């Protein structure tokens, strides 16, 4: 059923064992992402040097979709150019809105979150780690 596409093994596994979960010592950038309506409240922390994201982590309380999205995103961010993230975020958002688009290979596992396009009320959860990361990058 459709539900199994959202709560597929990869997403459930990231929810149970989130990567990069916890506080990041020596973070250069951080932002809090709070979705009061759902109760999601996460902190995204980054270490950025010479425009390159060396490490990314998140902490806080959130639903499975937000947690899996944050877990995958923080893995994916490592080694990326900070200046590219806004464009990637737009691309990810486009994938969530339009299920007829093909996957974007560079986004790797993050493509699996596209199942939320069938759950309009949950798109905000998949996006929260991205919008939080963008805000962290805006303010050192």
């Amino acid at each position: 059923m459709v539900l199994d596409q959202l709560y597929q093994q990869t997403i459930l596994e990231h929810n149970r064992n989130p990567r990069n979960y916890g506080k990041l010592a020596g973070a250069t950038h951080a932002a809090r992402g709070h979705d009061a309506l759902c109760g999601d409240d996460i902190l995204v922390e980054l270490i950025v040097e010479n425009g390159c994201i060396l490490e990314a982590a998140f902490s806080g309380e959130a639903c499975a979709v937000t947690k899996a999205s944050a877990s995958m995103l923080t893995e994916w961010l490592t080694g990326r150019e900070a200046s590219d993230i806004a464009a990637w975020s737009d691309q990810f958002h486009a994938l969530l809105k339009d299920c007829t688009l093909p996957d974007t290979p560079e986004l790797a596992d993050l493509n699996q979150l596209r199942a939320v396009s069938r759950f309009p009320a949950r798109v905000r959860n998949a996006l929260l780690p991205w919008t939080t990361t963008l805000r962290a990058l805006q303010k050192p």
Partner: protein
Amino acid sequence: MEIVKSGVRDQLDVLRLREQFPVLSREVHGKPLVYLDNAATAQRPLAVIEAMDRFYREYNANVHRGVHQLSVEASEAFEASREAVRRLLNANSEREIVFTRGTTEAINLVANSFLRPNLRPGDEILVSHMEHHSNIVPWQILCEQTGAVLKVMPINQRGELMLDEVESMISERTRLIGIVHVSNALGTVNPVAELCALAKRHEVPVLVDGAQATPHEKVDVQALGCDFYALSAHKMYGPTGIGALWGREELLEAMPPWQGGGEMISRVSFEGSTWNELPHKFEAGTPNIAGAIGLGAAVKWLEDVGVARIAEHEAKLLEYATERMLEVDGLTIIGQAANKGPVVSFTLDGVHPNDLGTIIDHHGVAIRTGHHCAMPVMQFFGVPATARVSFACYNLRAEIDVFLDALEKARTMLT
């Protein structure tokens, strides 16, 4: 309405009553709908849908304007609904019933017309810790603009108002107490009559947010002893976008108009205008006529079915649900007041309310998840969000079983 009384002990015949709610026969994600989000909004019976439909088909016209037949009929139906709301609340006079967009607008009306003109820096407004945002934010805005202070009446761990603490919080600067009759987030039924008696000794007016109370119990504003009572039609089987404010006539009489426009005036000239009489003084512009007619139909429907019978049925559902939910491992009920309406807020270990809501929706079960527009009460209990089931007259024990099965499936999936 004989068809909803079963032969046994004058109880509701719920299965036959359900036939009056068209939406209850639909499926959601291939499963029969189990609608347990009644505290957010109830479903509408045919009596309400048809009353509104009839207005638009047969006598749609503006009210209090024309001499033509349609306008006369529309005005009569509109005013008959006001009389129905007066009966619902056992108010003294129809002059005390002001139609609003809902509870929120009714509270904003009191904030802006009753309090604002006389509020001074340092004056105090009291509300409880369990209020809906609609009974917090209008006062906060007012306080910011006038220098008045919003003070919070405490609640205990069971989610009950600590009435003993209230008296010491009342001072000569207290200008109003705002209290929710039945909490949408916790289910708590507040001791409104006791609070009003206490306030009266200190000559402090009390506004009651009755949004969650009117569908579940017989409300008598005179017995409660309050000064303002706000309600929303859509919580009590009526349409959205319409509600009412009841206020004591002498208070409403002394209050200036809130919004200006047509209907609320007696005479207008560029030298100045005079105001229409109560309640029209507070009803500027063409009102939500179909909505008011729907509200009147909902009141009539509640009277026919019998609020006492509904309350008895819902109390049994609440008892059964609470008993079964307390047996669920890792489930915590948020709000365990001795006197509760048919609402159960809860958390489930290891399952975020958001995920729970999505998963059980796919089993056809509609529940609310989130902060329930009562973030301070979530903060009090130290939870970011809860899941909530809330019952209405048409819910069945079997639906609670479906909900509990879906709950187990969600847990299996996520943990």
